[in-house]
């Protein structure tokens, strides 16, 4: 609970939109307020349980689709109940708020709101290229296991893989000016589903960008297929 996971790419949270994601089986409504801050809330209105992600983002509040209750950005507290417009809502009427920050153009969430600011392992302050985020029908541990067997950082080079923890891996190759790192950040969606987010550092040169993205897309597709095959085989044996 008490740790950060990537749950979306920053550019998914466009103004006045509400995105839906899932972390450790918990559905989350993600939205950016007009001040630019990201809100990550349990995807459930405290009043009658309707998913907040089908409501609307007013820029300062999230409005539930069912009864129009409004919940304030930041605190998640209900500040307006249309059925009782002149009454101050009870303090107990609030959305369940999770901690959310943005790092390297990813939205990171901790289900425990007291979690300290995240420290993500990034080499220096160099700009990075976001690679494809890919959904895998397998637990995060199986993804880590498969990744540890090797990753081609470019057509010719096998990377050295280092596990930071159960959900973060780095693949490194080359040195000096030719050093390249791919940081893999895993989002445990449920116990059996994972999204792999990945970024390449330093950023790809503009002229190479498309070729680099295609290379990693192909690598990650093979990775996904291999993990899903081995999980399916393990399930058949069980």
């Amino acid at each position: 609970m008490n740790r950060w996971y990537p749950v979306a790419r920053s550019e998914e949270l466009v103004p006045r939109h509400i995105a839906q994601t899932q972390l450790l089986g918990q559905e989350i409504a993600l939205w950016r307020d007009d001040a630019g801050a990201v809100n990550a809330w349990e995807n459930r209105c405290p009043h009658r349980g309707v998913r907040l992600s089908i409501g609307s983002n007013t820029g300062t509040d999230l409005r539930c689709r069912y009864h129009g209750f409004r919940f304030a950005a930041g605190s998640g507290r209900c500040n307006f109940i249309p059925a009782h417009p002149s009454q101050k809502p009870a303090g107990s009427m609030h959305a369940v708020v999770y901690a959310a920050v943005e790092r390297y153009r990813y939205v990171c969430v901790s289900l425990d709101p007291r979690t300290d600011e995240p420290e993500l392992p990034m080499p220096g302050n160099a700009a990075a290229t976001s690679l494809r985020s890919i959904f895998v029908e397998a637990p995060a541990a199986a993804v880590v296991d498969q990744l540890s067997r090797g990753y081609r950082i470019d057509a010719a080079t096998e990377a050295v893989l280092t596990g930071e923890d159960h959900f973060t891996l780095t693949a490194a190759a080359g040195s000096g000016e030719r050093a390249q790192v791919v940081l893999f950040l895993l989002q445990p969606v449920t116990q059996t589903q994972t999204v792999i987010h990945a970024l390449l550092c330093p950023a790809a040169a503009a002229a190479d960008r498309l070729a680099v993205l295609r290379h990693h897309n192909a690598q990650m597709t093979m990775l996904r297929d291999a993990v899903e095959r081995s999980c399916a085989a393990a399930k058949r044996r069980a």
Partner: protein
Amino acid sequence: MTNESGIESVLWDDWHVVAELARLEHAGRFETMLLGVPVTLEMDRASGRVGARSDGADIASVAVKYGFVWICLGRPARAIVEFDECLEPERLTATGGSVRVAVSGLRAVENFLDLGHLAFVHAGYLGEEPHTEIAPYAVDARPGGGIIATGCRVYQPKPSPVDSHGFDVDYVYAVLRPYIVVLYKANPVEKTRQDMIALLVQPVSEESCVAHILTCYLPHEIHPPTVRRFQQFIFGQDRPILENQLPKRLPLDPRAEISVRADGSSAAYRRWLGASGVRFGAIPASDAAAP
């Protein structure tokens, strides 16, 4: 109290709608499910007799009433619910359609009782901003079981299939059985008399239902196709809301979902379900308290 089915008698030994008669007449044979039990309905076209079977055995208690097929899987502890309005010959009794919803039928009943959503989910028809305030209304126990909410009043831009202008509509709601709820609303022409709309909910599984609509209107410019089109349009607005409720079963613990004053009928409904021992489609308060 439960029986060999494991399902509480208050539901098992009661009558439930399992199909609209017109649909069975058309199909001849119809597969459905009640309280998690697969049921096959058949109509003998020559005699018009309706039969029901489950797991190869005949179901003894089958009836046709108000345009619907009703069955009881146990031993009927009481009669099919009575709608006196349907006996008034001048009124138009019409079915309003049957809609499958992926949520507990208890959630569907509660939504039918709900006043606060009208201005949002049915905006432009059964409510409209800024007319969102819900004035106090009375909720009482019904002598025969269930609850009754009286003195409900909402401004509605298009309250019925034939209205073109809005007015303040007076409502009475009554929950007659755990899965049966009815509303009476002032008729737009004869404002001292009421139209009746009932929601007869078929509990298919704990987390899915079919909502069957029965209407009984006073005969002012009203025709069955208009009724059906209007009711299905309205219920079509409710369905995506209901299917986005989490959890899918109705929590009976008052701490599970926070109520406001406008939810008086919903809170009373949940309390009455708990007191009646209804579990199918519900999360009993005792379960919620467990770690």
